[in-house]
C-alpha cells in the first residue's frame, strides 16, 4: 500500500512538471495503473485479517476484480486518448523544437 502511494506521488509530480501533453500522459498512465494495482491488492490482503471468513473472502474477490478491471481499462483509455490527440494534430515536444512525428504517417513513395 505504501508502494502504491509512492507511485501516486511520483505520477502527480510528473503530471505537474513535464513539458508536454504526451510526456504527462506517460507519467500519469504508468503511475496510475501500478499505484492502483498495488493499493487494491494490498487492501484485498488486508480484508482477510480477521481470518478466513466468507465475508472477507467475498470482499477480497471483489477488490481483485476492481484491480483486474482497472489494469485492463486504464491502458485502453490512455491509448484512445493518445490516438485522438495525434489525430487532432498535437505535435510532440522535442528539445530543439523540430517536428519529429507527423500524423497520418507518410507513405514512402518511389
Amino acid at each position, binding site marked *: *500500500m505504501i508502494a*502504491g*502511494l509512492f507511485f*501516486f*506521488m511520483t*505520477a*502527480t509530480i510528473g*503530471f*505537474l512538471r513535464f513539458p508536454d*501533453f504526451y510526456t*504527462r*500522459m506517460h507519467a*500519469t498512465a504508468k503511475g*496510475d495503473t501500478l*499505484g*492502483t494495482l498495488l*493499493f*487494491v491488492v494490498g*487492501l484485498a490482503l*488486508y*480484508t482477510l485479517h480477521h481470518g478466513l471468513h466468507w*465475508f472477507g473472502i*467475498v*470482499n477480497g474477490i*471483489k*477488490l481483485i*476484480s*476492481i484491480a483486474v*478491471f*482497472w489494469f485492463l*481499462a*486504464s491502458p*485502453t*483509455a490512455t491509448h*484512445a*486518448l493518445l*490516438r*485522438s*490527440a495525434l*489525430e*487532432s*494534430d*498535437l505535435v510532440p515536444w522535442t528539445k530543439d523544437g523540430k517536428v519529429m512525428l507527423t500524423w497520418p504517417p507518410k507513405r514512402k513513395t518511389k
Partner: protein
Amino acid sequence: MEGFFLAVTLALCVTILLSLYRGVFGPTVFDRIIGAGFIGTKTIIVLLCMGLIYDRIDMFIDLALAYSILNFIGTLIVSKYFIRKGAR
C-alpha cells in the same frame, strides 16, 4: 490501523488538489481529460479507504467498482468526441 488509512486519504487529497491545478490550467483539452481521469482513479482509492475507516467496506467496494467503470467509459467517450474539434 485507522490512522494509517486516514493518513493515506489525506495524502491522496493533497495529490488530487495538485492534479486539479493541471486540470484547470492545462494548456490543451487533453490535459484536462487526463486530469479528470487521474482524479477519478484517486477517488476510487479514497472511497476504499473511507470504507475501511467507517467499517462498511462491503458497500464502498461496490461504489468504487461502479465509479471505476464510469471513469473508464467517460474517458473513452470524451477522447472520441474531441478528435477533430481542434487541440488548441
